[in-house]
């Protein structure tokens, strides 16, 4: 991010920025930066906290008023929001009776689709509650997404569900859409989960997590350099890396 600041200042624009990774920003030494303690993915602190977001933005803009640079200043106040429950967050959706009738190892497509169908009412609620959805970047229905990923695990050369893009990107967009659907469904449910609790649920307790772990293993074993690279941290995030090889 700081590199863009240097390029834009050379082009004649005053720039100011948020920093989320202090070590990187100190090296790049951008013209102006507010060093924050916020989470990756949340440069303005917390969702649905407009006053807090505005204070962060104003402080970032205020760096533009300094006469000399580089200007690196600290924001030390923690972002508001729920703290992780020591007992962990539990998805209240009952994946029980009937769900275990389909073994994900035998029929992964049906097993995952059963789970998705259980979540659909919550995703409908999420769309209404949030007023939007981030699902849909692959522009495919969920059953097409799951079918492709299941087929890919069996044969990495399975026909692509999307034309005009490389295989790795089709896989990535399908994975991202699944994640968006699950996370948004969980966000609509009662109780407040932190993002870390949501990730712990998604990557450990769901049926789709089994599929993702298998998919990760398949990518790691291919000769395709990009798929192999995706298997490092592109399918299962670094903070969930201990889930790998769990199947």
């Amino acid at each position: 991010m700081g590199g863009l600041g240097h390029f834009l200042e050379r082009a004649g624009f005053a720039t100011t920025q948020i920093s989320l990774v202090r070590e990187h920003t100190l090296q790049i030494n951008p013209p102006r930066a507010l060093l924050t303690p916020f989470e990756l993915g949340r440069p303005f602190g917390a969702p649905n906290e407009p006053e807090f977001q505005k204070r962060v933005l104003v402080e970032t803009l205020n760096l533009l008023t300094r006469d000399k640079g580089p200007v690196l200043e600290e924001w030390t106040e923690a972002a508001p929001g729920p703290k992780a429950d020591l007992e962990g967050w539990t998805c209240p959706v009952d994946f029980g009776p009937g769900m275990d009738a389909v073994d994900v190892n035998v029929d992964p497509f049906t097993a995952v689709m059963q789970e998705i169908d259980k979540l659909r009412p919550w995703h409908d609620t999420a769309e209404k509650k949030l007023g939007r959805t981030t699902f849909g970047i692959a522009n495919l229905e969920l059953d097409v997404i799951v079918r492709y990923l299941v087929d890919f695990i069996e044969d990495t050369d399975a026909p692509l569900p999307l034309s005009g893009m490389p295989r790795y990107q089709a896989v990535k967009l399908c994975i991202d859409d699944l994640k968006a659907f699950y996370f948004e469904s969980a966000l609509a449910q009662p109780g407040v989960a932190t993002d870390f609790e949501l990730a712990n649920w998604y990557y450990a307790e769901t049926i789709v997590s089994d599929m993702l772990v298998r998919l990760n293993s398949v990518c790691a074993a291919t000769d395709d350099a990009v798929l192999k690279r995706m298997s490092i941290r592109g399918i299962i995030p670094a903070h969930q890396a201990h889930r790998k090889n769990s199947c």
Partner: protein
Amino acid sequence: MVQVDEFPDDFQKEFRARVMPEYGDAAFVKPPELKDCRVALISTAGVHRRGDRPFTHESGDYRIIEKDLAAEDFVMSHVSTNFDRSGFQQDINVALPLDRLNELAEEGVIGSVADYHYAFMGATPPGKMKPNIEEISRTLKKDNVTAIVLCPV
């Protein structure tokens, strides 16, 4: 919490120790007074309008975000899994504070908001974005932008 502190020790160490490019003496442009600034946002969160081409691995290209793009039209196709997306799912302003910027313009804290904002996909070497930064510099000038807030992810 998706903090760097939460990464496994080996990745955390490698991530923190990554060597960043050097840029030599930093240019430092003095903008007009804040109340007169016309401000644009540039994000590296890989956000874009639904239906736009998704970002690809190490792509240096950009997407255009119109000033009045509705929240429901935003999606994200950043290649990294290593940051939280649930905040963005709930409120785009946590990553791209368009509503907050418009409020500051209405309150007179800044002069005005640019007609166009821009999004790149981070996790791309800055050198790959440089030609496109030079390109959007021309449109930023036509838009009379005088200050830019850079929003990482």
